[in-house]
């Protein structure tokens, strides 16, 4: 029967989530060298080492057998919690599993995929599995489950009205909404947000910090506009711009809204 209706009787539900995750990109497999570097980092910024979960990325290492157990012990001694390993050959994968760690496939450089994807998930906020991350940042990147079918590696096109309570996300590229975004709805993108309709809800572009992106909409009534964390509420928007076609961009850390003609 339905997963969603009989919620009261269930012990848990599976949900997709994007969590910020520190990736430790190893360039040496020598536990001693790792220990030295960690010790010096710990003295510089002790606040960082608070049982922080880390993913050990071993893609840059070219060693079939890794002293994974010792590396993990060194990390734990410095209050880092290894939770998973990314990349590496099969023996590395096996030893990660043996140590109770997860294993992620290596980052792919680029995957050719069809350009358009439409995922008409209704109440997206509650059951949206996010596609895998391929963002190039090395220090902090989201760890994500597998992509649902119909989602491209890059951008995303959503056709239809995004309704109150719904959330539509493009965690890697641009988001194009062919329709309106209603009040109480939220659209988010790592890249730019394009709304070919009225934007009445919240629009957040550059959610991973990219300041070069923008928000473009046919009819501005947004509750909130944000580019790379710089935001404006509806109250802060010049009333003369309401209802017009605009672009929203960041210049000198100021969110600028200009008419698009």
């Amino acid at each position, binding site marked *: *029967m*339905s*997963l*969603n*209706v*009989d*919620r*009261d009787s269930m012990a848990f539900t599976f949900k997709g989530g994007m969590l910020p995750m520190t990736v430790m990109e190893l360039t040496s497999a020598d536990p001693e060298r790792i220990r030295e570097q960690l010790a010096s980092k710990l003295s510089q910024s002790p606040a960082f080492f608070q049982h922080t979960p880390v993913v050990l990325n071993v893609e840059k290492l070219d060693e079939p057998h890794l002293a994974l157990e010792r590396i993990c012990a060194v990390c734990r001694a410095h209050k880092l919690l290894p939770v998973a390993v990314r990349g590496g050959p099969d023996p590395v994968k096996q030893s990660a599993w043996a140590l109770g760690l997860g294993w992620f496939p290596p980052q792919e450089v680029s995957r050719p995929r069809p350009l358009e994807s439409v995922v*008409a*998930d*209704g*109440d*997206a906020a509650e*059951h949206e599995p996010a596609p895998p991350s391929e963002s190039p940042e090395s220090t902090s990147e989201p760890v994500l489950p597998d992509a649902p079918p119909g989602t491209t590696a890059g951008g995303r096109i959503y056709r239809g*009205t995004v*309704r*109150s*309570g*719904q959330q539509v996300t493009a965690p890697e590229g641009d988001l194009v909404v062919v*329709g*309106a975004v*209603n*009040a*109480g709805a939220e659209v988010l993108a790592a890249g730019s947000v394009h709304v070919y309709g*009225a934007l*009445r809800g919240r629009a957040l572009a550059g959610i991973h910090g990219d300041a070069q992106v923008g928000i473009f909409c046919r009819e501005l009534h947004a509750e909130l506009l944000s580019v790379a964390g710089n935001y404006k509420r509806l109250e802060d928007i010049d009333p003369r711009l309401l209802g017009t076609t605009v672009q929203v961009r960041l210049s000198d850390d100021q969110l600028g809204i200009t008419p698009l003609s």
Partner: protein
Amino acid sequence: MAKIIVVTSGKGGVGKTTSAAAIATGLALRGKKTVVIDFDVGLRNLDLIMGCERRVVYDLVNVIQGEAGLNQALIRDKRVDNLHILPASQTRDKDALTLEGVEKVLETLNQDFDFIICDSPAGIERGAQLAMYFADAAIVVTNPEVSSVRDSDRILGLLASKTRRAERGEDPIEEHLLITRYNPGRVDLGDMLNLEDIREILAIDLLGLIPESEAVLRASNQGVPVTHDDDSDAGQAYADTVARLLGEEVPLRFHEYQKKSLLSRMFGGTRR
């Protein structure tokens, strides 16, 4: 095969039960075998609006829990032959309903009726989700007011994701907009949202527009669905709504403010 229609809104007090009763009555008057089910367990109202509160013995919860047969719980309407009412329980709460139980009741009714109207409780929780889960079509009742429009928008999102049709990837549920308590005079004054604004925001097809009318309150308190009052504007508007639901093309009425002429003001007018 019956068509299962849920009457829903998210927000309370917008006229779901009144509309469910009026539309069910209208369908029955048009010769369709219709049953209207009250899903508002614990806040039973449909029996009052239908004027059958004195004849309730068993209810939906009794049927689901196997304490009574469906035929024992169904109440035949006194005014229209083809109409039956399945009341809700007043002494239980919404946890008494199960998905399997509701499915079984609907499957049984499916064989004997043309239309099954599910009167949803307010809110977006379990009760409302059970009422909509098996529906083929939804009538979203909205008042010309911002909070009602927003709640309807939320319900439309749920209809697109939390129904059996959505979960099975079947044809999406038909979505119809029913605007109630519309007062063209107050719309012109800017006190109420106008029809076009509501349609633009919700972006679904308009099934009907029911003017704000004294006839509705009178009908509720007398326990006679307003569709029977065919002299009244609201009664006629519900009849139009039912005709559109049956696929007929009916022009929209009652959406423009009519200034009363001198004569009608002198003699009291005929619009009620």
